[in-house]
């Protein structure tokens, strides 16, 4: 029996894996672990089938067909690891000499801990700024993470299941199978619903969470912000249900804004000003004298009429009447009113609760969003509008409210006091996260690069995540204009299938992947990506065959801790059997490559920086490692563990126990009340940051790079391209959802999951409303085409249901494989990405995330109906 962390999604539940005579024969949860409470999902249980899949890559493969492309046979030839390493070293060596920035690195979001050492540290050591998360723009969240970072110092929010009485879900599934602490949240959500938590789900289709909710509100895709802004307006204007104290002291609501849209600042200290109501004068927001401040009114500051930003928000929201929103989102005004009223009342503004002897605000309501609500052109403002509801009633990171997911505060492991970090205010008093796994912190915005250095131009913006600009049709023109001196040269990919997970595969292939001279991919299957684009394929070890540092700890990027009080856990991933055949954990290859390329010291330095940024502290590998010592991952893990948990808790301890846990504290879970940080109800800094990015774009002759008018301070609803489609022929809005049976495309090759997916009416089908189906003469099981106005098509079988809006069709993501290397996944389900474009029109101008809804027409396949 080996205790390790499941790797079938980023929920990373602690599991006991049973090995008999060298064969892995069983897997179970570990009841004592707060990571899953001993429960385990279908994906985790199916690990065995992934480990022993005869389609797994077992040997390095080299492309013999010089032609690349979708559907082109790569003509794989088995080579030895020596040959593979020589080839890789020479290609990377050349790139290093020419321009290291020509190296493009891509890593899977499913294994954040592995990704850190496999990709992020190597990228840094190599000296390239270029990095993308496989499916980052598509499946993850630019808008969601950005807004989560700004408002909660975390990449997402989740209800405080223990105390929450009313949760509104906007296109998210927390606690219903999503990867976010999947099994922990599933139990907590079930407990909450059993306790009587009301769940209200806004979603175009009757998702799992909607079907178990008290109320399903069928909303048009991409219109969440319109509904939420109307509700915010109602809370402020009609129901007066907002937490004045919270807005005064925990937001920038009282900050005075001049007519130019920017804060009016104190001349001496440079900090924003507020109106001191008691002394009737303007003062710095952080002045001790300010015992009460104005949220409304107009105040004269040195002859300029300034307004508290809350007043601006309030005025701005007036135009979002429920009637107006109703026309946009297809939800009746009375429903919006009723839900807003309930939300305001249930928030119990002013009430408190005592937990562990600490008196805290009690706001048992939460407005929760994730993937679904942010898959739109307006995603940054969509997410902001949704999270705003929490910040109006003061239900952020207090008992019962919307809690940061991947808690931003940890006061240290009790045994050593290490692993300590917390949030802090910047000079404007706004919340700064102290740990963030991506390029830079979500706030404050970094100085944009002039000219940008990255191929996706991400570094000339302030977004803390990724973009797909590198695959736009005009990428070459952009690179020339921005004087980017290098071009795509070598790519290293860790466990991604970019063909299936970035957007339209044709576009990505043509505009981007074809431009690389050499692509090396570490993976467990030969996916569509390897077959279409890779030159060298290296057989990675799967999660049961390798080590990983902390799979659970918040700062790794994807926290798996349950919400609320309980226990923290540091869990490792360790091999339960030796890698079979010639499979090798990618990290071993990367460490060897670093040595071969003479990057050993730079790798150690990058690892030091990452470990300390992610886990806090001042660990220095150089001080521990002998300069002549060959890099070894187990050794590095041992150093990290001992540094955090003491000399008796090195790797050996974790190999034996699998994990270490300790109690959470009230100050960590409900951190907002204990930290003097504010969040913006008025995003003044976006005006400033947007201007800087715009100036760079204008300087290099690309003034229309994005729609700069969206770089504003107040939330707005803006239509997606689907909302403005004029051709009545394209009458259905297609969107995708994530089935709890799968983790992106990786699990589609698993025969157990495939079998239950086939038995499930939704995972492999196109869900179509009964009435719409009747109107179109479509029957259950019919083979139909969905086609967008650009002629891109996807084919699949129809499942007729009343659980979807009549004007929408829903498709589960990442199905519809065709690669020979994934025979089980082949021809199952619908490949939705075929329909979505990678271009400016489908890119959020603020967060640069992708819009993934599409207007389609639906027609029957010419062939006979069968099956």
């Amino acid at each position, binding site marked *: 029996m080996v205790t390790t962390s499941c790797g079938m999604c980023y929920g990373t539940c602690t599991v006991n894996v049973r090995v008999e005579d060298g064969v892995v024969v069983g897997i179970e949860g570990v009841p004592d672990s707060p990571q899953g409470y001993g429960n385990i999902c279908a994906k985790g249980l199916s690990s065995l089938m992934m480990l022993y899949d005869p389609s797994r890559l077992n040997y390095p493969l080299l492309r013999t067909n010089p032609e690349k492309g979708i*559907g082109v046979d790569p003509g794989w030839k088995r080579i030895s690891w020596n040959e593979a390493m020589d080839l890789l070293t020479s290609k990377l060596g050349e790139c290093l000499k020419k321009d290291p920035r020509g190296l493009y690195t891509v890593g899977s979001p499913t294994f954040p801990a592995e990704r850190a050492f496999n990709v992020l540290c190597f990228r840094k050591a190599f000296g390239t700024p270029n990095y993308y998360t496989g499916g980052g723009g598509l499946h993850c969240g630019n808008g969601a993470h950005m807004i989560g970072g700004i408002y909660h110092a975390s990449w997402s929010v989740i209800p405080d299941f223990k105390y929450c009485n009313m949760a509104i879900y906007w296109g998210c599934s927390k606690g219903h199978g999503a990867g976010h602490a999947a099994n922990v949240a599933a139990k907590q959500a079930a407990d909450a619903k059993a306790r009587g938590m009301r769940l209200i789900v806004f979603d175009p289709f009757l998702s799992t969470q909607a079907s178990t909710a008290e109320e399903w509100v069928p909303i048009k895709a991409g219109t969440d912000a319109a509904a939420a802004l109307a509700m915010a307006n109602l809370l402020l204007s009609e129901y007066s249900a907002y937490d004045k104290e919270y807005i005064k002291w925990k937001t920038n609501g009282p900050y005075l804004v001049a007519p130019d849209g920017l804060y009016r600042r104190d001349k001496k200290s440079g900090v924003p000003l507020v109106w001191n109501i008691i002394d009737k004068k303007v003062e710095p927001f952080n002045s001790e004298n300010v015992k009460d401040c104005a949220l409304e009114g107009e105040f004269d500051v040195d002859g300029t009429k300034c307004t508290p930003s809350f007043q601006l928000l309030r005025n701005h929201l007036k135009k979002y009447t429920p009637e107006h929103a109703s026309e946009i989102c297809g939800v009746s005004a009375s429903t919006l009113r009723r839900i807003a009223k309930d939300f305001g009342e249930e928030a119990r503004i002013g009430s408190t609760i005592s937990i562990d002897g600490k008196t805290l605000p009690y706001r048992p309501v939460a407005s929760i969003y994730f993937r679904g609500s942010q898959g739109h052109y307006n995603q940054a403002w969509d997410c902001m509008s949704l999270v705003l509801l929490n910040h109006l009633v003061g239900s952020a990171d207090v008992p019962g409210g919307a809690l940061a997911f991947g808690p931003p505060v940890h006061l240290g492991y009790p045994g050593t006091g290490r692993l300590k970090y917390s949030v802090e205010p910047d000079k404007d008093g706004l919340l700064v996260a102290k740990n963030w796994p991506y390029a830079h912190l979500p706030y404050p915005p970094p100085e944009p690069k002039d000219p940008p250095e990255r191929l996706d131009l991400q570094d000339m913006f302030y977004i803390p995540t990724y973009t797909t600009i590198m695959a736009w049709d005009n990428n070459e023109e952009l690179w020339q204009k921005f004087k980017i001196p290098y071009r795509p040269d070598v790519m290293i990919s860790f466990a991604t299938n970019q063909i299936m997970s970035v957007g339209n595969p044709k576009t990505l292939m043509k505009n981007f992947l074809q431009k690389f001279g050499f692509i090396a991919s570490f993976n467990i299957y030969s996916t569509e990506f390897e077959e279409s684009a890779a030159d060298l394929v290296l057989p990675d070890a799967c999660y049961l065959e390798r080590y990983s540092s902390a799979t659970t700890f918040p700062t790794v990027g994807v926290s798996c801790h349950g919400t609320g009080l309980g226990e923290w856990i540091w869990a490792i991933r360790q091999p339960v059997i030796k890698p079979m055949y010639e499979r090798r954990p990618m990290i071993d290859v990367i460490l060897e490559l670093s040595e071969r390329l003479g990057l050993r010291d730079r790798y150690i330095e990058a690892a030091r920086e990452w470990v300390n940024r992610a886990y806090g502290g001042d660990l220095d590998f150089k001080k521990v490692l002998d300069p002549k010592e060959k890099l070894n991952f187990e050794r590095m893990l041992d150093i990290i563990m001992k540094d955090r948990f003491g000399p008796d808790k090195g790797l050996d301890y974790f190999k034996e126990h699998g994990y270490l846990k300790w109690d959470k504290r009230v100050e960590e879970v409900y951190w907002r009340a204990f930290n003097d940080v504010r969040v913006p109800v008025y995003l003044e800094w976006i005006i400033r940051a947007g201007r800087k990015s715009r100036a760079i774009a204008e300087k290099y002759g690309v003034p229309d790079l994005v729609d700069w008018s969206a770089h504003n301070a107040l939330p707005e609803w803006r239509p997606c391209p689907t909302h403005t489609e004029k051709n009545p022929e394209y009458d259905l809005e297609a969107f995708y959802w994530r089935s709890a049976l799968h983790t992106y495309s990786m699990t589609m090759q698993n025969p157990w999951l495939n079998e239950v997916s*086939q038995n499930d*009416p939704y995972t492999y089908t196109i869900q179509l409303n009964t009435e719409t189906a009747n109107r179109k003469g479509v029957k259950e099981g019919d083979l139909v085409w969905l086609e967008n106005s650009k002629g891109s*098509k*996807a084919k699949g079988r129809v499942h007729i249901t009343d659980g979807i809006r009549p004007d929408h069709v829903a498709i589960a993501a990442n199905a519809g494989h065709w690669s020979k290397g994934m025979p089980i996944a082949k*021809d199952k389900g619908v*490949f939705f990405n075929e329909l979505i474009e990678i271009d400016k029109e489908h890119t959020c101008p603020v967060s640069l995330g992708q819009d993934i809804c599409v207007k389609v027409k639906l027609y029957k396949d010419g062939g006979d109906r069968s*099956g």
Partner: protein
Amino acid sequence: MSQSTSSSQGDACVLQQEDFKPGARTQMEWGFGGRRRWRDGALLMALFLGGVGAGQFVVSTWLIDSVTSALVGLLVVGVGKTVAHLMYLGQPKRFYRLFLKPKTSWISRGLIFMVVFVAFGAAYLAPDIGFDWVPWETGSTFSDALLIGAILSASLVMVYDGFVLASCKSITAWNTALMPPLFFTYAVAGGTAMTYLTLIAMGSDIPNEDTLTTIDSVLLVSMFALLVIYVMNMKTSTATARESLRKLTTTKVAVAFIGVAIIAGLLVPLSLTLYQGVAATETVASVLLALSSILELSGDLSVRHSILRAGLHAPVFSEGL
């Protein structure tokens, strides 16, 4: 892009397995097999052969007194039905276990009836088919007793499968008192048809032809009546029964049920029977008789097939929960 075609679902992919569909669930084990192995079709043949074989024996001994035809009937049951059953079983070597629970299981009972029937039937026929060393003669009281035993057990063989199906509580299309009479009537009619065919093949005259024709017509009319009652019953019964009816009348099964069982197997033979009386020559009459017998037999097979196919379990979970 060319991949868009190959990336979508191939026709080989089963959309959903029937077991997992909401609502009524088709029984997949009997008649055509959940795993769709051809051997699974053998069960239908076992039911069919048991019914018509036993029927033939009864008709041949009771009404016609044809030893050959009775022997054929006996063999159809003793060999045909037995082989079909063995082919269907997952573990045929353990077939003897099928007899172990007559107290509660209709399969045990039916197979015991079958063994008893084959034993009595064989004993009764023995003196006439060359086993003249047996210590009884045809026509003796003992032989008559054997015959009564054989006919009684044959009748049970003809009716038991109706009880087998009727015992399935959740399959509303089966769980009806109509099943035993329906199967019995079909067995008699099938037996009559088999008898005709045997005699025609032997080139012998058909004794009691008028009586037989009358019986046949009565049987055809009553089978039709039973089917009408059966269908009407389903129409006014539960949603599952209505779904079964829909299957019987509007899907592929309708070809077997309406096309073969009702039209070809009932209405055509009925009109042929009427026409046969006024047929110009005896040859024409016997060709017509052969034709209508074949049609009746195919109707018999089809009705059993259709009823098996229409076997839908009531949803495990009633709606609205």
